[in-house]
């Protein structure tokens, strides 16, 4: 589904990603962990097409197409979804109107007929229930005045509505209390299927207790320095990141 | 809590601390303004022909202009013929060392607390003192000379560095800029001149003290500071004047030139005589201050304005070079019948230029305080940014606070933000401090200083303490 080859990227002439290789297949959940500043969120931003990131080398194929050539909206329409670490507040744009527009454009892109009001409402109710999202929030302005937890749940609600094939969760667990974390995780677990895939970016192992990954990668200094299965996350939890930093430094000097 | 009226009376009765007159023999030109006056000044100062011509052009411009009418107060008529345009301590040649300076004059500067003598200059401040119209002493000259820094009186610069003066004088504030700038161009008597060579970081604060002493004189100094590429200088000015029943005119011009990558920091503590509680006497402080920034340069104005009967000044920055920065930090206090109309102009011309304006007005008694500012974004100033915060604090119900910001933008990539608030000093804040054992007097001083903190923080250390004290004294007893 997603193939990243030797991806290099920089922001304002600062090298952030220094050669990422990663393959994600349908039905898989990949966790990307790493210390602060290792490039985790940058990877998410590059994949979603944030403009201040310059890709200097490498390629990304998404469903066989060159992802890096696409505008952010086309990436979304192709089925890539980013759950933002800091979802934006947009006063004056109602949540529901926003979703209607987004879904309408994605369907049009795929050549599907638009949903009528009734169908849309039905879908929206269904998904609200699925991810336990408060109906009151649906009718408010987009994320305006939402608590941190409500914003993150809104991201998952949007994920449920737009049904992407690949979802990237960028530190969705940060700032969540244990209840919110449980609700968000359950939402994701319900949405997991053989057809879609997830990349979960997190600093802590905690989230991975709820969303069990198939693979765990450790990102450090712009590179994936170690890959493994969920046991790797436990090891990181226990030993911290320092041993990996040492290891990667040794490698670098050799 | 103390009675409001009583306290307001206290403020009103507070006397001006620096109101003494110094008894020194002076050379005073009789009052009056005509071409002869200008020729006399120029000759007295042994000026080159081009400077006399420039002065005369200034005089022509002055005669063509009218007094401004846009202000929101009534400007009392000014009789330019009743002012003497030149007054200098008689005993004047050129001082080789401080020992030669009239001891009475030195005593005056002592009283003002200026670290004029070399010993006192250990504080690390190089001082140029302008007494009425003439620069009387410049300390620390030798040390600065080693670095190639020129810090001298304007008159001396005209003699010793005519090329620099000729190149830059009037380049930022033209001789015809406005009526007071034109008057200054015609009759300016002295002032300070600073040149910082390429790449030099001036190791100490440079400072000028201005003092108007003689009756019926105006003070028309002119300051020119040139920071060559990659250099840095921090410059301070302070001002006082004796108590007089007559209004005296101070129409100075300051020009700053920050070449590529240079930075100039200009701080003012203005405490001219404000007049008495009925508004009699006091200085009319009509000053034109402007700087120009070339690429990556920065000019920062900081001012603490507590004196003068009427203050009228808008230290401005022309952000001509790409990535240049202009800043304006101001605290202005008015009480009794004082009027302050001050602010800044930020002209964004280059790309990616930045400006920041922080203005704090405090009005007490019958004081009127206006912020008047312009933020102008030209069509080529892509990605320009401005932030303006301008707050007014009112103490008592007879004063006024006014805000007149002008925002003009011709660029769709620019961002301008202006915020302003007006409020009275919080009774609950004072009560809270009372409850913690602080009396109302100190509480007000604390609150005012807190309110002005953002601006005071911009001043060099020695000045910040002085300014803080000045604020507290100025508003002594002003519990609201």
């Amino acid at each position, binding site marked *: 589904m997603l193939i990243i080859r030797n991806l290099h990227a920089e922001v304002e002439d600062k090298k952030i990603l220094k050669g990422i290789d990663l393959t994600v297949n349908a039905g898989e959940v990949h966790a990307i962990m790493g210390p602060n500043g290792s490039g985790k969120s940058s990877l998410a931003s590059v994949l979603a097409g944030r403009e201040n990131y310059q890709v200097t080398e490498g390629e990304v194929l998404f469903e066989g197409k060159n992802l890096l050539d696409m505008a952010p909206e086309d990436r979304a329409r192709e089925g890539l979804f980013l759950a933002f670490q800091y979802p934006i507040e947009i006063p004056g744009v109602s949540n529901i109107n926003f979703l209607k527009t987004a879904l309408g454009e994605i369907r049009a892109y795929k050549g599907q007929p638009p949903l009528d009001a009734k169908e849309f409402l039905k879908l929206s109710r269904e998904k609200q229930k699925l991810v336990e999202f408060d109906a009151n929030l649906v009718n408010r302005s987009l994320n305006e005045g939402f608590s941190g937890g409500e914003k993150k749940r809104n991201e998952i609600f949007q994920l449920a509505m*737009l049904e992407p094939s690949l979802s990237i969760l960028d530190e969705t667990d940060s700032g969540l209390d244990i209840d919110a974390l449980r609700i968000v995780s359950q939402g994701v677990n319900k949405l997991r299927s053989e057809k879609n895939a997830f990349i979960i970016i997190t600093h802590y192992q905690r989230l991975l207790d709820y969303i069990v990954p198939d693979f765990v990668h450790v990102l450090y200094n712009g590179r994936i320095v170690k890959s493994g299965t969920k046991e790797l996350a436990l090891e990181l939890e226990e030993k911290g990141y320092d041993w990996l930093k040492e290891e990667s430094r040794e490698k670098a000097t050799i | 809590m103390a009675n409001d009226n009583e306290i307001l009376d206290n403020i009103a009765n507070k006397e001006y601390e620096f109101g003494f007159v110094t008894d020194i023999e002076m050379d005073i030109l009789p009052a009056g303004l005509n071409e002869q006056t200008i020729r006399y000044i120029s000759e007295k100062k042994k000026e080159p022909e081009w400077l006399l011509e420039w002065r005369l052009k200034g005089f022509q411009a002055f005669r063509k202009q009218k007094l401004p009418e846009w202000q929101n107060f009534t400007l009392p008529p000014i009789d330019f013929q009743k002012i003497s345009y030149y007054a200098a301590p008689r005993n004047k040649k050129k001082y080789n060392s401080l020992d030669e300076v009239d001891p009475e004059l030195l005593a005056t500067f002592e009283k003002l607390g200026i670290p004029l003598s070399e010993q006192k200059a250990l504080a690390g401040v190089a001082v140029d003192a302008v007494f009425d119209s003439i620069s009387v002493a410049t300390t620390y000259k030798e040390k600065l000379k080693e670095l190639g820094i020129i810090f001298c009186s304007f008159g001396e610069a005209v003699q010793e560095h005519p090329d620099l003066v000729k190149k830059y004088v009037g380049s930022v504030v033209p001789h015809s800029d406005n009526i007071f700038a034109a008057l200054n161009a015609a009759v300016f008597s002295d002032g300070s001149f600073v040149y910082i060579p390429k790449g030099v970081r001036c190791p100490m604060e440079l400072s000028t003290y201005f003092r108007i002493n003689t009756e019926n004189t105006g003070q028309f100094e002119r300051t020119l500071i040139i920071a060559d590429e990659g250099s840095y200088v921090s410059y301070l000015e302070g001002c006082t004047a004796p108590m007089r029943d007559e209004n005296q005119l101070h129409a100075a011009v300051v020009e700053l030139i920050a070449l590529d990558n240079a930075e100039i920091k200009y701080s003012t503590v203005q405490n001219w005589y404000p007049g008495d509680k009925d508004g009699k006497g006091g200085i009319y402080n009509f000053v034109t201050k402007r700087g120009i920034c070339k690429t990556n340069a920065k000019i920062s104005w900081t001012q603490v304005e507590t004196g003068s009967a009427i203050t009228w000044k808008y230290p401005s920055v022309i952000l001509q070079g790409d990535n240049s920065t202009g800043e304006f930090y101001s605290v202005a206090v008015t009480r009794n019948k004082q009027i302050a109309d001050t602010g800044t102009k930020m002209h964004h011309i280059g790309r990616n230029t930045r400006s920041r304006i922080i203005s704090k007005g405090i009005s007490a008694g019958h004081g009127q305080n206006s912020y008047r500012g312009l933020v102008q974004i030209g069509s080529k100033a892509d990605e320009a940014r401005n932030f303006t915060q301008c707050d007014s604090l009112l103490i008592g119900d007879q004063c006024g606070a006014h805000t007149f910001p*002008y925002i003009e933008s011709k*660029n769709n990539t620019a961002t301008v933000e202006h915020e302003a608030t007006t409020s009275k000093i919080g009774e609950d804040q004072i009560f809270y401090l009372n409850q913690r054992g602080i009396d109302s007097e100190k509480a007000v001083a604390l609150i005012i200083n807190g309110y002005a903190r953002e601006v005071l923080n911009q001043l060099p250390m020695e000045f910040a303490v002085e300014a803080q004290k000045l604020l507290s004294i100025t508003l002594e007893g002003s519990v609201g």
Partner: protein
Amino acid sequence: MNALQEHTLPLYGKIVDKYHELSAKDAPPLARQSAFHKFQLLGFPTIKNEDWKYTNITRFLKDEYALEAPAVNAPAPLVAKATIPGLECYRLVLVNGTWNGEAVGGTLPKGIDIRRTSEAAKAPEYAGFFSNEFAGTQHFAALNAALYTDGLFIHAAPNAALDKPLHIIHVYTGDRNFWVQPRHVWAAGRNAELSIIESTVSISGEPFIWVNSFTGIFAHPDAKLDHVNLQIAAENVRLISHTSVHQKKQSLYNNYTFTLPGAGLVRNDLQARLEEDHTETHLYGLYLTAGDQLVDNHTLVDHQKPHCFSNELYKGVLLEQSTGVFNGKVYVHRDAQKTNAFQQNNNLVISKKATIDSKPELEIFADDVKCSHGSTVGQFSEDALFYLRARGIGEASARALLINAFAFDITDKIKHAPVADYINQLISHHIPVNHAG
């Protein structure tokens, strides 16, 4: 009078002639006379007048205008354009400032009196609304007071209320350049309620039509007035609109002014005078400008007495090579303790050639007050744009969505849903598909 204008503007001579013509018919009332002298003193404003610093009208004044407005019927398409779908209302149409006396929507409730200004001015019981005091001291207000002939007079007796809004459609049309000066007076008696929606429409193309309108609004104690002003005239219209509001004790006045692409020159002077205590005033404005439009909103909130509350929010969206001007003044007199006054002006500059001049002002002479103002000039938040695009919304739609969201703060405040929907439609219609750069 500025000598230059006097000699170069043919218009000025016509104005003098017109005044004498009006005077010859009837001995001019004192108000008219003093207003004319005022205008003679002031002349037309130039950019040297601080209040007209950013609004140069000289080029508009140079055209030839007749001072007689043609008497014609309202073209049905224009009335249709102004009609608000789904709005339950009383509706009446003024053509070139004159009302033919017809209204649709049923019988007006008791206590609501609507007449032509020309009739009301003669009625002794309404004499107070046409006194010298309200003649106006500004250039165009003075000119209007000197030369007006008609307009719309609305009076709500004490405790009377409109059961549904009154929609006034101003239609301007003709086949030659003309100048028209309608004068309206709307008064709500003690505890009365009025909800008024105004729409200004015009034919497009030729000719040039100059509208110099003046509306005097009087809110007596406890009265409530809701006033929506929709300016959707075409590019050939020059619209100078002065609204002078007088509020008494505990009255409420809400104004919503919308200016959309069209009229080449729009100048709105909205002045609210809070003459007694405990009043409440809300001024909302939205200007969406395009083409060569010059749209200038000048507002004054004059806090004369204590315990009054005012809130002002004006938002601007500037497209193409248009120019927007905002000048908001909050004046707090010495007596007006416990004033709460807020003012905000936000501008979204969409295109490279657009200009915005914003001048929010506070003049405060009382100490126990809470006053603030703010003004911003900016663009879309890039983060917001990216967020929308990352959800699959195309860039053009995302921009349109953000403009609507920006305007939402204003449209949201309108009480009648059909009016808000109608305005949102108008806004969407004018939002360009692509104005990037």
